[in-house]
């Protein structure tokens, strides 16, 4: 329900609009075009450039003789007061306000790429704005018009003419717009495909049909002249097609001296039409019809809009609001010939055809993705009427309204939706016919459909982190290289270098303890603090391992209880290494995270051997990684191949671990003795990491940066360094490795 501000004014509105019925005019006949020949197929059609030429000669100061009563309420106040004499607009005022209304509708529906050049003509021409996009606004034009002011009745009529303006309009049409310029620059060799067409709308008071012909001839000659000049210029374009729309305005109560004439060809370059209209309401209607014709607009009347009036809060009345928009929003109607069935009526206020759609009171604010085949900007016909502003404010506040197409059968079909996006209201066309995609096989029936442990929540989190945001355009961002969208893709690439899709494929992503590192390592660059957090995560894992904390390792595919605890940690460490390795090329700090892991993790003897065997494979990997960094945009197959490699390796490791477990050569079961030794290290033995431990670690790390670390300490695990390592290397495998401490 919309609450209307003041019902009092409302009633005024209702009383005043029930004026006499005007001439009925057909504004659009359904075209027999095929679906491809849509009007928007050509960007540089006649409607790309519109030059308004408004006559500013002394006779335009004449009164339109349409009187407006300003002092409406005085009568009701009684007291025998003399009401103010009604005011009347001049022909100039009528011309200006109707042309501004034309511009208002145009700018609402096409904020871009449909340009207006406003020219005023008296003893000379005055160009009020340029083709530049930033000059295209009604405020800009109003300000310029105020500076021009009304025509001066004292001026010598002999030296004033609308011709100055028409010549200026032709010259202006030859000027290249920024869009034409841009298109020509991008097309290079085929720049001649960029057409130059335009329309001149001339609002004047002509003397006779002969006078009109003289104006046409003048435009024709000027075009030929200007085209010659344009041929030799880079900044000008010759006119290929020009539509001249002459609107002869005459005061009420007078007979017209100029006859209406439909569009005719003056030459291959110029067509001309003449409209002879009374000033005032008729002129407004005429220009409203013209803007619809010129820009392929159509009208929709939203009916049954319930509005509560402030003074009668209990009652609500239904109102209608008429909107203009691109006519493709009615495509379905006029293709089906349903136009009349869809509630098309001729309204006396608009004097034209409109399609009536019924308001459906929105239920909730549920966010839904409708199947929408088109969205078109709207402009209310009567922008400052109460019902219009109530509707538009309601929409601007973020509510969407579904619209129902009334059908004779009584069935309810929702065919459209009104919705605002960032202060602009759009009429969405919803698909209301049967879908050819109905009853598709469910995704659960297809590839990967049987797998039940996808990391849906984790990927959801991933998507949230990879949401997009508009980045303001600035010369800096261009200088720094990639456009934002490419940076977004690069981020996706980094985030997915190691991303197991199912829960049973991963250990580390099922562990809370790994989260800080996993979140940071994917970053493009790491701060010193990030590095520290990563290292802490590793220390924490070491601690967990020492305490023999259980790991959330999947038991899928293995017999019994799954791998033993130490095996679990080995799998976990391997996976963590895999993750971090995919990022080491990123920066030196990324490398230091890996160094930290390698330094801290326990390595069982088999690991060493496996590593030797796997060295070749890793070499390949490194190469692949380097090539990616060189050109991460072109990461095609190579990259995913590498990923597959990584995954396979992961599987292999798991496989291996199982083999080891079952093999008679597998290491001795855990010996408790070494663990007792460890307990003697007081600060590390008790429960989760204490503040002291964290602090000590931090200090140690900070200090370690200040001096070169002992070789022994670097390769130590839990502060134990193995001596005479070279002997082991020489002898090959040695069972008594320091890693055993935690086994």
């Amino acid at each position: 329900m919309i609450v209307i501000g003041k019902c009092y004014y409302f009633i005024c509105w209702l009383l005043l609009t029930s004026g006499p019925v005007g001439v009925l005019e057909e504004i659009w006949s359904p075209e027999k075009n095929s679906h491809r020949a849509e009007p928007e197929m050509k960007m540089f059609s006649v409607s790309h450039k519109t030059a308004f030429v408004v006559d500013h000669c002394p006779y335009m100061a004449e009164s339109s003789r349409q009187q407006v009563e300003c002092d409406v309420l005085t009568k009701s106040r009684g007291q025998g007061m003399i009401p103010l004499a009604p005011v009347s607009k001049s022909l100039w005022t009528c011309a200006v306000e109707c042309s501004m209304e034309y511009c208002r509708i145009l700018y609402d529906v096409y904020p871009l790429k449909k340009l207006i050049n406003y020219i005023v003509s008296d003893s000379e021409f005055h160009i009020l704005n340029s083709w530049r996009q930033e000059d295209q606004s009604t405020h800009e034009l109003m300000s310029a018009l105020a500076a021009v002011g009304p025509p001066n009745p004292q001026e010598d009529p002999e030296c004033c003419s609308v011709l100055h303006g028409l010549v200026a309009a032709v010259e202006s049409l030859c000027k290249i717009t920024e869009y034409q310029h841009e298109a020509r620059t991008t097309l290079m060799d085929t720049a001649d495909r960029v057409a130059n067409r335009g329309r001149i709308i001339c609002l004047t008071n002509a003397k006779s049909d002969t006078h009109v012909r003289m104006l046409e001839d003048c435009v024709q000659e000027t075009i030929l002249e200007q085209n010659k000049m344009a041929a030799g210029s880079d900044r000008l374009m010759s006119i290929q097609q020009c539509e001249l729309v002459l609107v002869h305005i005459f005061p009420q109560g007078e007979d017209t001296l100029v006859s209406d004439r439909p569009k005719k060809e003056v030459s291959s370059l110029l067509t001309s039409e003449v409209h002879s209209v009374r000033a005032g309401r008729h002129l407004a209607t005429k220009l409203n019809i013209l803007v619809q014709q010129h820009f392929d607009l159509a009208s929709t009347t939203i009916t049954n809009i319930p509005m509560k009036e402030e003074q009668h809060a209990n009652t609500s009345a239904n109102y209608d609001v008429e909107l203009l928009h691109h006519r493709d929003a009615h495509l379905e109607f006029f293709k089906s010939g349903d136009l009349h069935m869809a509630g098309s009526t001729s309204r006396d206020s608009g004097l034209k055809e409109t399609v009536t759609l019924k308001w459906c009171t929105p239920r909730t604010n549920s966010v839904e993705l409708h199947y929408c085949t088109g969205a078109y900007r709207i402009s209310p016909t009567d922008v400052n009427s109460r019902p219009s502003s109530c509707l538009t404010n309601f929409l601007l506040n973020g509510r969407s309204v579904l619209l129902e197409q009334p059908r004779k059968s009584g069935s309810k079909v929702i065919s459209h939706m009104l919705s605002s996006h960032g202060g602009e209201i759009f009429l969405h066309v919803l698909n209301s016919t049967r879908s050819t995609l109905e009853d598709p096989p469910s995704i659960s029936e297809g590839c990967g459909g049987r797998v039940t442990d996808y990391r849906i929540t984790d990927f959801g989190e991933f998507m949230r982190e990879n949401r997009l945001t508009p980045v303001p355009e600035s010369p800096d961002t261009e200088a720094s290289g990639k456009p934002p969208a490419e940076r977004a893709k690069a981020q996706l690439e980094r985030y997915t270098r190691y991303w197991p899709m199912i829960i049973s494929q991963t250990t580390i992503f099922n562990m809370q303890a790994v989260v800080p590192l996993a979140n940071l390592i994917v970053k493009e660059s790491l701060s010193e603090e990030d590095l520290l957090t990563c290292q802490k995560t590793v220390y924490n894992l070491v601690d967990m391992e020492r305490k023999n904390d259980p790991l959330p390792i999947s038991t899928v595919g293995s017999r019994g209880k799954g791998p033993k605890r130490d095996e679990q940690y080995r799998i976990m460490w391997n996976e963590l290494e895999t993750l971090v390795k995919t990022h080491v090329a990123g920066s030196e700090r990324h490398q230091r995270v890996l160094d930290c892991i390698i330094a801290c993790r326990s390595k069982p003897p088999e690991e060493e051997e496996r590593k030797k065997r796997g060295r070749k494979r890793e070499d390949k990997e490194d190469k692949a990684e380097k090539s990616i960094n060189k050109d991460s945009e072109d990461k095609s197959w190579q990259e995913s191949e590498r990923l597959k490699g990584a995954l396979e390796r992961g599987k292999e490791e798991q496989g291996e671990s199982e083999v080891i477990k079952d093999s008679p050569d597998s290491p001795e079961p855990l010996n408790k003795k070494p663990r007792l030794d460890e307990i003697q290290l007081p600060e590390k033995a008790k429960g989760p990491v204490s503040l002291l431990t964290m602090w000590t670690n931090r200090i140690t790390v900070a200090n370690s940066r200040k001096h070169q670390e002992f070789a022994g300490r670097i390769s130590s695990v839990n502060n134990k360094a193995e001596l005479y390592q070279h002997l082991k290397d020489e002898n090959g495998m040695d069972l008594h490795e320091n890693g055993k401490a935690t086994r």
Partner: protein
Amino acid sequence: MPTVVLMDASLSMTRPVSLEQCSEELQRKNLAVAGLTMLFEHMANNYRLEFTSLVAFSSLWELLVPFTRDYNTLQEALSNLEDYDKTCLESALHGVSNVVQQEWGHACPTQVVLVTDGSLGIGKGSLRHSLQTLKGRPEDKKFPLPFPFPAKLFIMCIANAEELQMTDTMHNLEQLLQLNGGDGQIFTMEGQLCLKSVQSMFGRLIDEVYSPFPAVLRCGNLASDVQVFPRPEPVFLDEEIDPMPRHILTDLEIVGFIEIGDISSPPVMSRHLVLPIVVNKEVDDVGPGTTEEPEEETSANQQAGKVPNFCVLLHGSLKVEGMVALVQLGPEWYGMLYSQADSKKKSNLMMSLFEPGPEPLPWLGKVSQLGPISDAAENPYGEDDSKSPFPLQPKIKRSYAQNVTVWIKASGLQTDVQKILRNARKLPEKTQTFYKELNRLRKAALAFGFWELLKGVAELLERECTLLPDTAHPDAAFQLSHAAKQLKLASTGDSQYAAFDQNINPMHTDFSGGGAAGM
């Protein structure tokens, strides 16, 4: 994209094919049936989501099978096809038009496969006659082409090109295509009329129109082979500047993710199912003879079902989070992936294509300017997801979003004058609103060159001043006469007083309280 098969069942289709090497006698109809059988078999195996209907025609037309995905039914109807009298294409095309409109409305792109021997009738009702009488027909007897829906017309001639060119048949068929806006193609048989040549002709149709669209969906390093159904059609942007059709890439790369509320029911050109597939590199998927053993197929399917697939993961998370993935389809061309629920249980990964261009949705801005949130100094969604950087606001507000002044209807002007008077009577409390409304009227009157109105309103204010009750605040009279004076000055057009961007400010009086002082 539904298909209508329009099968010529006229007597001329029963003409035998003159065969030199084959002993068995074949009719043209047999060849047509063989070709269509091949088409149906292909669809059943590789394009099974296509809805197809079968219409037979002679002088009359009949819908033999309404739109279905059951290709056995189609096949059966085809083999029970009887022979009728002469060919009358125009009424048959009317039939097709009706059948399609009833089922799919007017927006659904459709494919019409006309199978005929090329003898298009004689005299009234023949195609030649229809084409000759195209002009000057009354509204209700218009030729059915172009169809009121987007349609491609494929004409499968059970005849070779030379044969058709001997008469004016080829010319007539070309005209037919032109009437359809050039959308479609004429297929003829090469060499002798025999099973082999008819199969090769239908093979060409299959390759061009009914072959699945394979693609790879990527999100960084995660990827899945997919089939996009229906085949995305090439798109024409601007016939003048950019007359080449645009095709979507077979590499569909995700750019990032957006909330459903932010993307906000965007307009799309078409919708397509994105079905994960297993690419079997050893098997040649072309060739009608390779009908796999059903058992093998199901086990292969079961196997594929157990291998984790990125599409399923993506679909699940999009559904749970209520988000869409923005996907790049080509240079300056984008689309979105989302979960589409067909019923309560079944849902699918769907892709919608936006109109090509750098900025398909004004409320998102240029897609190339959409970057990762990590690039922003502060998370634009807020730490608790309470905000959103979308929608973008246009630089200039639309007329309905600003307080524009339109006086085309007398009521507009009267309302504005009344607003001023109403506030005038409540001075000095309403000083601010009074001057705001006054200045709005002043601006418009100056722009419209409506100086008479300024004078009129000045007089009204002066009169209000005289009508002030004795109890009125003394400031009211001062403000009213000050405003009236300023309006009068503006109405002279004197640039000192009639500047558009200048405002009339409240008069500072000894009585004016805080309200006016704040201006």
